C-alpha cells in the first residue's frame, strides 16, 4: 500500500484483452513497477479499484487465481462511464489499480470438502478466481461441482474455460441458460439456476456452496441450498455494492453495520442472515 496517498493507484499495463461475451471483456494486467509486481499478493475473493485514468474508478473483483503470478485479471461488463472507457483500452494501454481490498474466501478451511460453485451471469469472475485457486490445489478438495447459468448462450462468459472445466474429469460442470434462449446447438441445461441446482446438486454432506450472482438469483438460491441440507455457515457468497474508495470511507457500501469493502465482500449466508436487506 502506498504510504503517502491511499487513493493513489498503481499503474498497470494491459497484456491481453479478451472478449468474453457482448460487452464483457477480460483484461490481463501487469504492474509496470517491477518492485510492486514482485511484492503484490492477494487472496481469492478480494477486489480492487480499477481506473480508466481521466474517467474514473470502478470496482471489480480480481478474477484470476492468486496462484498465478505476474499478472492479475479482471472481467467487467460495460455499463457506465468508467467501464466504457476501460473497454476502449487495448493491449499495452495503461490503467490504474488500487487494491487488493476486502476479505477473501477461506479456502484453507474447506480442505477435504466437496465444493459446489454456483454462479449466474456476470458474477462468475469472483468464483473463477476461487475455482482456479481450488483446482490448483485440487488434491485438497473432494468433488468439485460448478453450476453456471446465464440468460443466453451468448452471455455465458469464459467460454474457453467452461470448455476446459467440462473436459476435466475431476470437475463436474453444469451450464444452463434461461428457458427460451437456448440455441439449436446448446447442449447444456435449460432453466434458471436455482431450479437446475435443485436438479443436479450434490449432497450437502461435507460440502461447501459458494454462490455468486445477481441479487435475485441469490435470493432464490439460498432457500434451495438450505432445502438441500446446506447449513448457512457452509454457504458462501460475495457481495457487490457501489463503492468509491474501497476502504470504508466513502460511506456507501455498507450493509447495516458492515462495510462490504472492508468486512466483505465474502460473507457466509449465516452472516448475511444477520444483516439487513441492504444489498
Amino acid at each position, binding site marked *: 500500500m502506498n504510504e*503517502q496517498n491511499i487513493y493513489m493507484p498503481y499503474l498497470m499495463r494491459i497484456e491481453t484483452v479478451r472478449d468474453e461475451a457482448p460487452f464483457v471483456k477480460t483484461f490481463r494486467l501487469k504492474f509496470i513497477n517491477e518492485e510492486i509486481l514482485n511484492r503484490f499478493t492477494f487472496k481469492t475473493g478480494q477486489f480492487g479499484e480499477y481506473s*480508466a485514468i481521466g474517467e*474514473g474508478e470502478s470496482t471489480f473483483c480480481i478474477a484470476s487465481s492468486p496462484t498465478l503470478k505476474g499478472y492479475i485479471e479482471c472481467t467487467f461488463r460495460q455499463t457506465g462511464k468508467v467501464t466504457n472507457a476501460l473497454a476502449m483500452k487495448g493491449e499495452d494501454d495503461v490503467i490504474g489499480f488500487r487494491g487488493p481490498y476486502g476479505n477473501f474466501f477461506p479456502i484453507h478451511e474447506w480442505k477435504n470438502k466437496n465444493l459446489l460453485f454456483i454462479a449466474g451471469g456476470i458474477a462468475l469472475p469472483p468464483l473463477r478466481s476461487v475455482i482456479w485457486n481450488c483446482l490448483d490445489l485440487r488434491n485438497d478438495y473432494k468433488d468439485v461441482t460448478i453450476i453456471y447459468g446465464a440468460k443466453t448462450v451468448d452471455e455465458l462468459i469464459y467460454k474457453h474455460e467452461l470448455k476446459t472445466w467440462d473436459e476435466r474429469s475431476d470437475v463436474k460442470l453444469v451450464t444452463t441458460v434461461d428457458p427460451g434462449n437456448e440455441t439449436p446447438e446448446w447442449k447444456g441445461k435449460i432453466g434458471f439456476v436455482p431450479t437446475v441446482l435443485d436438479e443436479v446438486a450434490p449432497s450437502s454432506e461435507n460440502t461447501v456452496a459458494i454462490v455468486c450472482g*445477481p441479487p435475485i438469483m441469490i435470493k432464490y438460491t439460498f432457500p434451495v441450498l438450505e432445502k438441500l441440507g446446506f447449513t448457512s455457515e457452509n454457504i458462501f457468497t460475495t457481495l457487490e455494492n457501489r463503492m468509491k474508495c474501497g476502504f470504508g470511507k466513502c460511506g*456507501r457500501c455498507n450493509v447495516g*453495520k458492515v462495510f462490504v469493502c472492508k468486512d466483505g465482500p465474502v460473507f457466509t449466508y449465516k452472516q448475511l442472515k444477520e444483516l*439487513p436487506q441492504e444489498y
Partner: protein
Amino acid sequence: MNIENKLLKLSSLEGLVLKLNQDGKQVFAPVKKDNIVNFAPVSAFHEMTQDYIVTARSAKFVVFPRVETILEMQFSKDNITLKDKDLSSIPDAVLLGTRPCDAAGFKVLTSIFEGDYIDNIYVTRLKKTTIISISCNNYDAKCFCTSVNVHPGGTAGSDILLTRIDNDNFLAEIVTEKGKEIVNKFDTLFDIAPDVNKDSLVANVPVEFDLSAILGKIYPRFESDIWVEQSLRCIGCGTCAYVCPTCGCFDIQDVSDGHNGQRKRSWDSCGFDLFTLHSSGHNPRNTQSKRWRQRILHKFVYVPEQDNILGCVGCGRCSRACSVDMNLKEHLINLIGELTK
C-alpha cells in the same frame, strides 16, 4: 497534556488575527454575508461576526473541502503519469470561532479518515489547522449538544477554547500542543488566567432526550415503519449532509481534458438516491426512508460501534438548513418514543 488556562483580551484578538495572518496562516472565522453566517477567510478580527449561534455550514470544509484534488494526471500518446497530491502545498490555517460542537465534529471526521487506511490528505489538513473555538453563551431551539454528550463549553476537538468571561475578556483554555504553539508564539497577547467558574459562563443547553435510550437500541428496529413515517416529508436533497460537521461521505470523480486531469474527491450525501445505485440498476437503498434510516443509523449506530464515538454533535445545522423542517432533535425524541413502546 494538561489543559492550561490563559486570559485573552478581546482587544488582543484583533492582534492575534493579524499576526496569524502575517504568520502565513489563513484565518477562517464566522462572517455574516447576505444574512447568513459562514466561515470565511478574514484578515482582521472585526470582520468576524459575534452574532451567531452556529454557522450555517460547518467548518469541516477547511480540513475536508467540498472539492479536493487527490491526485493529478498527465496524458501523452502512449503514457500516463500520475502526480501525487503535494501535501506540502496545503496551507496552514486557523479556525477561529468554531463552537465546541464543531470542534467535536472533527473528532468524528478524524475517526472516519483515520483507521486502517489513513487518509493523509485529511490528516495533513487537520494537522495544519489550529482550531480556536469559542464556547457558546447562547443556543436556540435546534441545538441539542448536551443531549449527545457535547458540552457548550467542551474542549474536545479544539486546540484552544475561548470562553467569554465578560465583554472584554476571554478565558483561553490551551487544549493541545498545537494550541500551545500559538500561545508561545504570540505570548504577549495572552495573560494569566483569572479564576473563573467556566460552567457559569457558558450557555445552559437543556438535555432534551436520554441518549442511552437510543444507543444500542436502534439497530433492532431496522425494519420499523418509523423510518417511512419520519421521512415522508423528506425531499431527498443533500443539504443536511453538506452542512453537517460530521458527514464525511464523498464521491471520487476524474476530470480530464485529454491532456491533463485531476482525480477529485467531493462531498456526497447518503440522501441522494444515486449514492448507492448499482450499475446494474439495482439500488439497495432505493427509497428515501431507507436513506433516512441510513443517515440516522450512521450517526447513532455505525460510527459509534466502529469508531467508538457518536456521529452526531448536536449542532442542529441539518434541522436549520432543511427546507421541509426535518428536525433531527424532534425525530430523535420521536424515535425514543417508538423504541420505548
